[in-house]
């Protein structure tokens, strides 16, 4: 069968796995963006920078404090989330009753500041981060590196837990209610401003977690976030921000599509997601899982 399509199975499955890993990051980032947008009505342009901060958090924890990867997996997202919550309290909060575009512009400015500071300190080239799970398993048709398998499984678990909490628990029902009618939820005695802060912190933490997971898979570099966030924006436009599961499915799906493009038509691999976005805009402008709002 593989001879028929003229591609070695090793290359095909290898790229498929790489695509799944990219998809895992798309899914986690677009999930965070969707959760933040739902409650804050802000498109968090800083998301890419916060993902980068997560990766750098892991690198700093290892090199300055001697905290290994597994500790950084917990510490780094929490620290980045706290920084995010401070930003929400001091800057973002003042823009909620203005046009949504101001939130986008503010977070864009913050992204520039963060990226500039890291570039100033660490230069533009990447820093290596050791693989915490060396080795792999031979599955017969391909070699499966342990760490890559871990990234895919871990991010799937994180995404599904997030979905479960938001769609199936009482806490999530408050969140969904506040997304629809914050004023009514406030009237029922729930502290909506605090909820907004925590939601932003959660979304940012998710981005930072993705960053920590990315550190051993790619290099840690100040520009890793800004390159990724634009693709994630396209993912968000394709999926629509209406549904949590939609964000997860679109993220993983597009990662796989990108991986397959690398096998069959490498020249288009960097643009395929944007092309899909253009097609989706023509066919269903609200996005695959989106609702007109």
């Amino acid at each position, binding site marked *: 069968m593989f001879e028929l399509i003229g591609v070695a199975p090793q290359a095909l499955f290898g790229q498929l796995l790489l695509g799944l890993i990219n998809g895992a990051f798309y899914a986690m980032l677009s999930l965070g963006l969707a959760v933040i*947008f739902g409650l804050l009505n802000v*498109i968090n342009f800083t998301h890419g920078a916060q993902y980068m901060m997560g990766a750098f958090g892991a690198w700093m924890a290892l090199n300055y404090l001697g905290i290994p990867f597994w500790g950084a997996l917990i510490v780094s997202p929490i620290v980045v989330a706290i920084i995010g919550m401070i930003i929400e309290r001091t*800057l973002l909060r*003042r*823009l909620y*009753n*203005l*046009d*949504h*575009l*101001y939130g*986008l*512009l*503010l977070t*864009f*400015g*913050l*992204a*520039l*500041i*963060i*990226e*500039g*500071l890291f*570039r*100033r300190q660490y230069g533009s080239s990447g820093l290596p981060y050791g693989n915490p799970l060396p080795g792999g398993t031979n599955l017969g048709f391909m070699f499966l590196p342990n760490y890559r398998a871990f990234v895919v499984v871990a991010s799937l678990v994180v995404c599904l837990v997030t979905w479960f909490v938001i769609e199936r628990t009482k806490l999530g029902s408050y969140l969904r209610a506040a997304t629809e009618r914050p004023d009514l939820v406030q009237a029922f005695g729930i502290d909506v401003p605090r909820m907004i802060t925590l939601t932003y912190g959660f979304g940012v933490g998710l981005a930072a977690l993705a960053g920590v997971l990315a550190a051993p898979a790619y290099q840690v570099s100040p520009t890793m976030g*800004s390159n990724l966030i*634009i*693709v994630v*924006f*396209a993912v*968000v*436009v394709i999926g629509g921000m209406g549904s949590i599961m939609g964000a997860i499915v679109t993220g993983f799906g597009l990662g796989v599509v990108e991986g397959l493009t690398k096998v069959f038509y490498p*020249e288009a691999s*960097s*643009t395929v997601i*944007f*092309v899909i*976005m*253009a097609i989706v*805009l*023509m066919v269903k*402008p609200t996005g695959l899982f989106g609702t007109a709002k």
Partner: protein
Amino acid sequence: MTTTPLAVTAPQQGFSPVRILIGIVVLAALIAAPFAVYPVFLMKVMCFALFACAFNLMLGYTGLLSFGHAMFFGGASYICAHTIKVMGFTPELGILAGVAFAAVLGLLVGLLAIKRQGIYFAMVTLALSQMFFFFCLQAKFTGGEDGLQAVPRRAFFGVYDITSDFNLYYAVLVIFLIGFAIIYRAVYSPFGQVLKAIRENEPRAISLGYRAQQYKLLAFVLSAALTGLAGSTKAIVFQLASLTDVAWQMSGEVVLMTLVGGMGTIIGPVVGAAVIVAMQNYLASLGEWVLVIQGVIFVLAVSLFRRGIVGEVIAFVKARKEKAGA
């Protein structure tokens, strides 16, 4: 759903004696400027001022934030540089080719992007512009990482020599004034009024019988074409078209210029462009700090003075007039 208007209302138009006098003084200053200031700096300011004014046509007057205007700026810059350097065009034909390219690209992108509004519009334009960036990175004729260097400065129309920066300055000034006049005319025409109506309340504008989508598309194409004019001119001034011009940072820079100067004001983007270009020139030695400083200006502008420099001045004058009247 109600949101606060994105921009302050523009000053009243009209040709009072004071305005005409101000116009003459400004024109005289522009003509005399290269005797006092380094011409290349002035030309850079004018290119970016035109870019920001064209961009403001979308953000300030139509209420749509495009985060992808770099593709028109850089795209036109590549086409202009390529036609002049490789195909032997004269500058005015090169500029024309660049503008035509930007307009067609604007039409294609606009058709897709105006299907969504608000932040989605911003994300779609950003994503499409990134796609264009990758295209330029891989295409042969753009010269990849090197860009198109040493674009020859042929004579305008075959007669006006522009090899000296001093001569070129006046050609660029004419181009800038033509572009600015088109934008001025568009903003203060019935067309511009409809755009503002769409910005303030799109459903109502539609209910009054205006085809909002067509107006937005036309504004987008016009904005793209004028951005192309700025990008082409820049390619001739610096004799260079490179990836910097199509990168997303360039789209961010023009947003910053417009925001700092005052979106929705006719002169604001010019002031904003002058401020940002001057800042980049004086702080160039600081390297990465420029990025940080630009970010800080963004945050300050959004948090503290959303009306921008010109917008604040207009608001101040207005408040004083009202005080004097009362």
